[in-house]
């Protein structure tokens, strides 16, 4: 029984990791319709920023967290202005461009850091909750996931900026007619999405290490979470990452990791067969 409870708690951690890794993609893919194949590499950029900050420059982890957001967001803004902006109406070309970008980033990282690098665990140790041992870092990850989700929801629902993005998503031309500079908002939204991917990289770095090929693992998982949750729904992403994370961990507890992975993918295929718009689809005109 204790093990089962412990599995559920571990599942929360995995769900939080999944949610953090997905948020950035949700914004770029869900709100801007850009299929960002370089999402995984943006996570990698954030992770390498964390590595450079904490392991080489000895900057505290929490400041590295902010740095990874800022640097990746700037990088995202640059990408948007130079590459993505010209391609909004051409999804196929966007895929090619971002895929190319992902390869370029990966290869550059490989030349500089051929080996996987270590980021020290910022909050080592465990706490015991009635016999269940929980790593401190996991608690931090779950709190971060909740904070990022809440902040993003508030940002998009209740601020003027967020409402403008909503308007653009619904009808770009009409929004432009109303005198809103869609171009600037696009850049900022893309930058915010990229920055979130950077934070994901930072949070993943202490547990998985930092390597040039770390991104590809999370690309598939993130797209899966977005599609299951419903492409434009932040709440949907929270639900789907919880279902997938908990499902995987609990199933792995009763069978093993390989089977858990197979079952989850099977469930996802069945789900999108019958509900292709995801669990929390928004009404679209």
């Amino acid at each position, binding site marked *: 029984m204790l*093990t089962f409870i*412990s*599995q559920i708690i*571990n599942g929360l*951690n*995995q769900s939080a*990791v999944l949610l953090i890794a997905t948020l950035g993609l949700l914004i770029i*893919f869900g709100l801007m*319709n850009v*299929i960002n*194949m370089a999402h995984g590499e943006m996570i990698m950029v954030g992770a390498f920023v964390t590595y450079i900050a904490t392991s080489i420059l000895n900057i505290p982890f929490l400041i590295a967290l902010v740095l990874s957001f800022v640097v990746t967001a700037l990088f995202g803004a640059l990408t948007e202005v130079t590459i993505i902006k010209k391609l909004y109406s051409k*999804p*196929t070309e966007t*895929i090619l461009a971002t*895929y190319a970008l*992902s*390869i370029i980033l990966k290869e550059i990282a*490989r030349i*500089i*850091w*051929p*080996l*996987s*690098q*270590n980021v*020290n*665990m910022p909050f*080592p140790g*465990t706490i015991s909750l009635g016999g269940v*041992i929980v*790593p401190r*870092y*996991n608690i931090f990850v779950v709190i971060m996931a909740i904070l990022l989700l809440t902040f993003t929801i508030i940002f998009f629902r209740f601020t003027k900026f967020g409402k403008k993005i909503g308007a653009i998503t619904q009808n770009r031309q009409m929004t432009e007619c109303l005198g809103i500079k869609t171009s600037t908002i696009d850049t900022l939204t893309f930058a915010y999405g990229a920055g979130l991917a950077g934070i994901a990289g930072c949070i*993943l770095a*202490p*547990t*998985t*290490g*930092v*390597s040039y*090929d*770390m991104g*590809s*693992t999370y*690309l*598939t998982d993130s*797209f899966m979470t977005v*599609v299951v949750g419903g*492409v434009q729904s932040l709440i949907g992403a929270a639900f789907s990452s919880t279902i997938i994370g908990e499902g995987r*961990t609990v199933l*792995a*507890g009763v069978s*093993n*990791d*390989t089977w*858990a*992975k197979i079952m989850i993918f099977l469930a996802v295929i069945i789900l999108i067969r019958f509900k*292709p*718009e995801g669990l929390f689809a928004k009404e*679209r005109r």
Partner: protein
Amino acid sequence: MKMKRIIALAASMVLMASLAGCGSSASASKGSASSGSSDSSSGDSIKIGVLFSSTGSTALVEKTMTDACTMAFDEINAAGGINGRKIEYIHEDYASDPAKCTEKIKKLIEQDGVVATVGCYTSASRQATLPTLKDDDSLLIYPTYTEGEEVHPNVIYVGCMPNQQATDFIPYLMQNVGKKVFLVGSDYVFPKTCNKQAKALIEQNGGEVVGEEYAPLGQTDFSTICNKIKDSGADLVYSTVIGDSNTAFYKAYKQYGLDPAKCPICAIGIDESNLQAIGADYAEGNYASMPYFSTLDTQASKDFVEKYNEKFDDGTVVTVLTESAYSSCYLLAEALKKVDDPTDTDALIKAFAGVEFDAPQGKIKVDEYNHSTWLYSRFAKIHDGKFDIIYSSDEAIRPEPWPAVLYPKYKDTNFMPDWNDPICYPQ
């Protein structure tokens, strides 16, 4: 409507990308990167193929193996070559893709006319070359440690067999660490075959297997496995986890409250390239077994590490695989010296029997019968982010492709079935 199309498009791209990540890299170079002079009419040099990836998922490891081969062949040439003839090595990149490996070995043998090839990293890539080697009657020198239970007449296995990692290691662990063992591995053939042998050895030495778990390749969440280890009451974890998953595993291990001082991870799948990423704190106190560690304190080993680091200052480190690729080239050179006509493959294979080389790890020798190599057994305890060698066998240990502990019937036939037996290699 448009949204659905985009989702479909995204889904197919993600699928493609993840497939690409699995091994085949569509963008890999088609051109042949060849070193050495490409004058095909030079009758005086001996042509040797070097077949390792420079692109794709396993390129990083294979790059150090290519480098080691370059270093070895340059040294052999500088020392006068093979009976006065220079070695001309031709490098081909198979882009971490077994299908491409078949194509490239064909090219090396049929177009370039190499007398033998040093190469391949994964078992899948090696097995992709086997039909061609047989049809074209050529030879492959394979430097990677392997799971055994395969002996091909056209392959010389220089990497270690599981018995060379386990037969000394497991009794030591039973006596000095504990009897209750939890087996953890990556989910594919190498860990499963090695663990089969480990289980037999554990039981033979009075130990007990209290659990067995496999994680998919590339897994980064080890919380469930750590929980199961905790519940099992194990004294030690015998690990065959491979690659970068190790970082997540070692970190999760301590994060979830398991203590290497009480229950160490004893691994046969980690080397120097993993240690940096795991970090000194998390690697501390765990064990590893390999024929060679770059911390080996002998002149030959120190010279080798120094030479490599001087020549290839690119962030890579010397591992057992680098050493093995280097030794493979020298063993091949020694065998070539014994034959009159290097293109006579049968004679060359015969010449390999009993060939010796003073490798960085010590004196090694190709077995007279089973095409595998006598190597040292060494194990180390990790301290301060380095392998502290705590045991070295006095001399090289005989390889057992079909280990005696599992297949007593092959004990008197050089640890392998008859050469004509179809179970010798995948047909």
